[in-house]
């Protein structure tokens, strides 16, 4: 204790500032936010079209589906799990919703509820296999990824169009100033805010962190980790259903081929947002930043006329950087 005090006094002002800056940078969410800001400033200097309300609204449009999926993915990854099935589960949900409404004359509201129930059921299935049968999440969700894909394709191979407006209402826009904003963007933001609140301010949320951090300690603290994990995967499944509804609203079709790379895209957003793949550390708002980083890079490089493969290349490099930071900071703390 006294050593530290002596040390403190001998420190020069610069050193203290440097230490404060290091501390600030290590706070969760600061790194990703800085990366997003720097990327945005860079693209703003490269092209006039970037920093317009219209373009930024477009960026948000492009990230709402993956961004919403990534909320569920964040919950799962915080428990030290992973969900490979989310894109396929979302596609199944959106095909069910649209098919029921268009081909079976089910009222859109009921069709949406049935779609949400099915994606939630898939989540509960994932959670039960992970928590009760104690299978690794990677394998479980690899299995349900294939199951959801096969079920979707057995059910439908062609896209469903001519959707009733009641099922695509989230694609409608309202304007703020000159900028048109879709209701879907608002839904995504609300999903993020609710998840953020629940994770930070409720027991359930703190238990999600605890179980990812030290499942044994969580169990010994008298928490049913089985029930907790099933609820996490179940809620994630429900969120994938919302993502499915946003997908339908955005594309105006029910597409059995949709979402095939969405699982990896959502993991990318989570990792870029600073959530640890080891579980227990991270934040859902970081994930939003992560999703926006991907969106900003794709959009900015596109506006600069750079071929799309380079966008993928940059995303890959960013992911490896983000995971390296996680690995290094984890080693420092363990």
């Amino acid at each position, binding site marked *: 204790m006294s050593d530290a005090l002596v040390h403190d006094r001998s420190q020069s002002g610069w050193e203290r500032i440097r230490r404060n800056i290091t501390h600030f940078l290590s706070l969760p969410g600061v790194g990703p936010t800085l990366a997003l800001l720097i990327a945005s400033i860079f693209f703003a200097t490269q092209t006039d079209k970037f920093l317009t309300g219209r373009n930024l609204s477009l960026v948000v449009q492009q990230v709402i589906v993956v961004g919403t999926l990534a909320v569920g993915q964040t919950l799962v990854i915080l428990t030290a799990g992973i969900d490979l099935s989310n894109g396929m589960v979302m596609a199944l949900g959106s095909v069910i919703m649209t098919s029921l409404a268009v081909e079976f004359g089910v009222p859109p509201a009921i069709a949406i509820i049935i779609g949400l129930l099915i994606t939630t059921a898939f989540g509960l299935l994932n959670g039960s296999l992970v928590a009760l049968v104690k299978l690794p999440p990677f394998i479980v969700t690899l299995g349900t990824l294939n199951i959801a894909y096969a079920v979707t394709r057995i059910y439908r191979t062609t896209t469903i169009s001519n959707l009733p407006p009641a099922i695509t209402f989230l694609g409608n826009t309202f304007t703020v100033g000159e900028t048109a904003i879709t209701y879907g963007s608002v839904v995504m933001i609300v999903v993020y805010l609710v998840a953020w609140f629940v994770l930070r301010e*409720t027991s359930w949320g*703190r*238990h999600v*962190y*605890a179980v990812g951090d*030290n499942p*044994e300690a969580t169990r010994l*603290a008298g*928490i049913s980790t089985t029930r907790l994990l099933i609820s996490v995967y179940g809620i994630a499944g429900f969120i994938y259903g919302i993502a499915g509804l946003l997908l339908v609203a955005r594309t105006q079709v029910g597409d059995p081929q949709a979402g095939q790379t969405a699982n990896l895209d959502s993991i990318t957003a989570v990792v870029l947002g600073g959530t640890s793949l080891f579980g*227990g550390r991270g934040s859902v708002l970081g994930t939003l930043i992560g999703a926006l980083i991907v969106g900003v890079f794709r959009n900015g490089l596109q506006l600069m006329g750079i071929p799309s493969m380079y966008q993928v290349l940059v995303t890959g490099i960013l992911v490896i950087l983000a995971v390296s930071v996680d690995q290094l900071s984890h080693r420092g703390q363990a």
Partner: protein
Amino acid sequence: MSNPMPTPVLQARGLVKHFGHVVALDGADFELYPGEILAVIGDNGAGKSTLIKALSGALIPDEGTIYLNGTLVRFHNPLDARRMGIETVYQDLAVAPALNIMENIFLGREIRRSGVLGSLFRMLDKKQMMNDTVRYMADLKIGIQSMSQPVGTLSGGQRQGVAVARSAAFAKNVVIMDEPTAALGVKESRMVVELIRQVRERGLPVILISHNMPLVFELADRIHIQRLGRRVAVITPDEYSMADAVAIMTGAKEAEPQLAS
């Protein structure tokens, strides 16, 4: 040892537990008196951990009875025992390193806000929990600056301090410490010794399970020696040496009859 003893806080009579053909407990008795530190020692396979698991609700004995403050109790799981004020500190530092001290102390026992914020929105009362945490840590004289720092940033001894503070805060009757220093270095172990004394100072009896004989002889008021599934002796550190204890533990020496009865 003929002076009249008060009612034991925790008592067991004739505990039996079989695992297949293996007899882990073969009619074991046990008593813990108010305000004492009782060490439980025994060779591997003596039924030491089975006994402790039975007393903390982690397993259900096949036969025998357990009394808490003189009343017959049955624990079906660790939560039952916890609800009756029996808390356990585990050897492997059962804390969540990414969560802060306050969150670890209140893990699974969080306090919610009053009113609508708590009942409808399920919001936690972080302020209340923080105040309580500061008090619990101060009670045990654990000098840690900030209760909002992640437990992962603490030393092993400080982490064990968090675990002990949690148990002491919620234990109304008994604190069980299962090899509390096994994962710690010498200096850190000293810290835990002080913690255990602090817990006794607060009037809570402690059951200390340890292989560390010097630790046992330093701390314990009485020592329960377990052998072949039974209690073979209860000794005091003043009357017996460590060598005697080890001899009784391994069966090389018979226990004094008065205490084995």
